[in-house]
């Protein structure tokens, strides 16, 4: 049975990162990072895409909560369209933690996630016991016509050695987009260290976006054979 989110709001940023260390980071999933940016042919110079997002779920089947996502664009093993591999997904509420881990195998854990989506610059922090793992600020972009964002994506996840694919449908409105426009500050956490290893501390984003209203649907997960 699909899980429906009736109202969420999102700010996100995409960063180009060196493909080789990004691949090493997600090797545990058996998936390959996508390298969609045309550029140097030498494999060592290829760039993968790391996407960071913070989401406020107000009305949905998983209850109200805040979430931060670290994802990489990946090429699915069966040669289908580019998907998003969710590497880390801290949330601030217990119900969604349990549901996310058991239904889809999303790598959720509990954190304090203050989010400000009302101000001009959207901000989010992820904290564990008062210690900051990271902070992300996203500047406002230009309004995009309706349906500018990808309506259908496959989300991939890997928990306890099982890689899963979850079809994910989105209906965004109030989308704003711009080049650059995001600032990531990394703190003290293993994932922050991983992102630092990809050169993301203080890095300039490729693009950033905000979605004022997002409805979503997550279908059941299926196991991906390696």
């Amino acid at each position, binding site marked *: 049975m699909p899980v429906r989110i009736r*109202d969420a709001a999102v700010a996100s940023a995409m960063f180009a990162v060196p493909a080789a260390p990004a691949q090493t980071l997600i090797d545990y999933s058996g998936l390959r990072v996508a390298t969609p940016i045309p550029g140097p042919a030498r494999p060592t110079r290829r760039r993968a895409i790391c996407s960071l997002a913070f989401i406020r779920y107000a009305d949905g089947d998983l209850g109200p909560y805040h979430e931060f996502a670290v994802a990489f664009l990946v090429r699915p093993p069966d040669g289908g369209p580019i998907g998003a591999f969710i590497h880390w997904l801290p949330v601030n509420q217990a119900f969604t933690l349990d549901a996310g881990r058991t239904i889809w195998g999303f790598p959720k854990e509990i954190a304090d996630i203050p*989010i400000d989506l009302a101000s001009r610059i959207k*901000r989010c922090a992820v904290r564990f016991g008062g210690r900051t793992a990271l902070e992300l600020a996203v500047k406002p972009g230009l309004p995009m016509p309706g349906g500018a964002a990808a309506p259908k994506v496959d989300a991939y996840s890997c928990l306890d050695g099982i890689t899963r694919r979850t079809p994910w449908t989105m209906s965004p409105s109030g989308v704003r987009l711009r080049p650059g426009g995001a600032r990531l500050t990394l703190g003290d956490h293993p994932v922050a260290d991983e992102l630092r290893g990809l050169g993301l501390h203080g890095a300039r984003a490729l693009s950033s976006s905000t979605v*004022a209203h997002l409805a979503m649907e997550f279908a059941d997960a299926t196991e991906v054979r390696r």
Partner: protein
Amino acid sequence: MNRTGETAPGSWEVVPPRGTRTALVTGAGSGLGALAAQRLAAAGWDVVGVDVDEAGLGRTAARSPNMHTRVCDVADPKAVEALVAEIGTPHRVLHAAGIGPLSPALEQPLDEVERVVRVNYLGTVHVVRAVLPGMLARGQGELILFSSLAAWLTAPLTSAYAAAKSAVNAYAEALVREHGDSGVKIRCVCPPQVDTPMLRRIVERYPAVGRTRIMPPRLVLDEIDRSLARPARDLYVLPGGRARAAVFLQRHAPRIVDLVLRQAIRPGRGLSEETRTG
């Protein structure tokens, strides 16, 4: 932030750490109150949602362990007092409960007029009297009272509603003059027409209402969030440029406003219907 990640919370963090703050949201069964309660719960506040609509409360609080609900009619002073005695003084109160039946002034049954005043104006008084003393004793708090743009620009058919909301404005102004330096932030929110179940019921009867621009509830709540960063005496929250322009026009060019509003909804017959906001 330094390398070890030890930071003070940023100035933008209106959201406190988990479990350290409590919020009371009235009218949480639907509309603005429901969304406000869900957003606060998402941010980790301990929320008590209140409404007369028990089923609506159930929908708002579904799968939200830090949201608690109580059926309570804000028009009943004893019930409101008992509720606050039970839950303690909240850090933030968002009083969104209200009703908005439309009717020509001379045709509206007197008991309906009384009910509108009782829920919208006296309901506000009851909530304030129950929570403000505790906030004053604590020396801090956020008291957000919902009025309406109708208190500034009164359209046909809204006599009782607009009168009650105007009373809320006057009451809030007196409160902020009495307690503006107390550390408690008082806000009087005057939204234009907002897309809520209450408005949708009105539009069913008066399609003309639906032809004006209708604001999504999230924009009203964003405006409230931003307003809380402003000084304590900055009482009014007018969500959206059109609402601010309308209030400006009402002050400086009332004849234009009169011309527009006379056309807004044409009075008819048998028009009274009680609707409940959230």
